[in-house]
């Protein structure tokens, strides 16, 4: 009897640890102070952004340096829906996601004409176009930006604490849904196709994978999740401007750094990377531009000497996986380690 299994002992332990961690995070409003909660919410948004970028670049091979286009778009759509159309901000978050996903279809059609590294810069041009258009929108404050009016903010929840809780759970919820969706996607038929594309695009194509279609799907899904996260980020900030919304440093450089350090092309990578990134930021942020300089250097070193990131380095060596993603061929009843 042979069959294919996903789970290994390490992934069972991993799942148990994740379940415990998740419960602790869900209850965070009751055990942490306000500053910690804000930090956790911010970390949560970065885990989402990095996981989505990882799916895009690490699996589908679409290296975008323009995902800030969708972070900003999501943010601006939230402000537009809430201020101009009077939609409740929480309800505006999924709407912003859907509208951005729809807009990403023509963008993808255009960007997919560029290959490889030129695709990367093309996406950056697109983000710049979005930023320049945003700074022409005088109803949303033009180049200097706009704040979410107090009346809308107060209408969200009866107290500031309740609002903080709401936004935190929203951010955490989006992260969990994104991660679950990515795991489900990777375990599905499309996931096998994606992993094949990651490992060898030409071979995948010759084995009947519709590479273009899979990439297109991933691009649109990523736009959806990234825009929802962008909406939540600017709901937390309560203020938006073209330069913060479409910042290449905040929404792409940091995200790439997180993914590369944690481990690109692995689902655990962005989570580990986010923890390391925030630990570094909390200790070194006083250094200002020197801190960014060091970050660039660390990213180069990791890319050259540990291209699979810190998680890749440990997981490879020990055969770990925190989530049951790999496919193991089981010949008896004992899972064999090693070859996926």
């Amino acid at each position, binding site marked *: 009897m042979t069959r294919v299994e996903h789970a290994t002992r390490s992934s069972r332990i991993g799942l148990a640890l994740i379940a415990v961690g998740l419960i602790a995070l869900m209850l965070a409003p009751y055990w942490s102070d306000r500053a910690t909660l804000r930090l956790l919410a911010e970390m949560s948004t970065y885990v989402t952004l990095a996981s989505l970028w990882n799916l895009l*670049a690490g699996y589908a*091979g679409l*290296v975008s*340096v323009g995902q800030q286009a969708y972070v900003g778009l999501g943010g601006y759509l939230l402000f537009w829906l809430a201020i101009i159309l009077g939609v409740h901000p929480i309800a505006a978050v999924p709407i912003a996601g859907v509208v951005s996903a729809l807009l990403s279809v023509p963008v993808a059609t*255009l960007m997919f*004409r*560029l*290959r*490889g*590294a*030129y695709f*990367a*810069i*093309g996406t*950056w*041009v*697109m983000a*710049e*176009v979005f930023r*320049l*258009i945003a*700074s*022409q929108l005088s109803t949303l404050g033009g180049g200097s930006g706009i704040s979410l009016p107090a009346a809308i903010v107060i209408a969200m929840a009866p107290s500031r604490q309740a609002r903080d809780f709401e936004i935190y759970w929203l951010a955490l919820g989006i992260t969990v849904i994104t991660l679950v969706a990515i795991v489900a996607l990777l375990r599905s038929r499309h996931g096998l196709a994606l992993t094949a594309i990651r490992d060898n695009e030409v071979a995948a194509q010759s084995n009947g994978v519709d590479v273009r279609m899979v990439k297109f799907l991933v691009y649109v899904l990523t736009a959806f999740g990234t825009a929802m996260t962008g909406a939540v980020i600017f709901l937390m900030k309560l203020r938006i401007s073209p330069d913060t919304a479409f910042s*290449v440093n905040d929404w792409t*450089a940091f995200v*790439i750094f997180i993914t*590369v350090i944690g481990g*690109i092309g692995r689902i655990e990578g962005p989570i580990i990377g986010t923890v390391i990134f925030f630990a570094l930021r909390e200790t070194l942020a006083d250094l200002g*531009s*020197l801190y*960014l*300089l060091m*970050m*660039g*250097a660390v*990213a*180069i070193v990791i*890319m*050259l000497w540990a*291209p699979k990131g810190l998680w890749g380095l440990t997981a490879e060596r020990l055969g770990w996986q925190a989530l049951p993603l790999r496919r193991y061929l089981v010949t008896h009843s004992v899972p064999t380690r090693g070859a996926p």
Partner: protein
Amino acid sequence: MIHWLNVILQGILVGGLYAMFAAGLSLIFGVMRLVNIAHGDLIVLAAYVALVVTNSLGIDPLTSLFLVVPIMAAIGYVLQRGLLNFTLGDDLLPPLLVTFGVSIIIQNGLLELFTADSRKLQAGQIEIETVQMLQGLWVGYLPLIQFFVAIAVIAGLQILFYRTALGRAFRATSDDQPVAQLMGIDTRHVFAMAMALSLAVVAIAGVFLAVRANFDPAIGPARLIFGFEAVIMGGLGSLWGTLAGGIILGVAQAIGAELDPGWQVLAGHVVFLAILAVRPQGLFPKVSG
């Protein structure tokens, strides 16, 4: 009428500068399929090198080229040999991410050394001298020099590529790296020479940029994008195509700025996207990417 002629002419002249941004980018892509995300920041670095050279030696910016060009070429050689050569291979990610890291390092290094203040190179009298082209149409000497230097740079690169031994090595490596290696070409050296040449062009572009307008450590990425747009519009691999692409971008921006100052850069991007939509291979394509 003469007003719009003027706008278009200024756009064409700026296009020469964009073509120089693009030529360096196109050159290294052609030879080693490397897209250098730090290209724009290297242009800004060249501007700062020129600032230091002109300030410490008291020479004018155009003379400083005799120092800035070799300095930048040396930086290019070392950067390629010491770092970027290790990223080349079948995988797209390492070169992209490493040059992205280099970009962040240059930006923040310049910020640390020179602060975020805007700087400009002073070229003296030549900056304000003009020549009359038509009744009511005056053109500055400096933009004219800049444009003719751009043409000379591109013609020079063209000759270097198709008439010299180094150019033959560039083309051979570009066509088939393993075979070039079998024929006794040291590809590590060829790649480093290509980057040195690219940064020599970057040095010229950087100095003209710094004389023309204010610069600060953060303006690099936008220059990368302008160069990239010129490359794609002109057609991959065609040097004269990059000149055409640069001119189209310059004219689009000039017309956009004339309609509304907020539309200058946006108009360039829109024309770029339009060309990408109707003619993705660019106007004068030579190789497929």
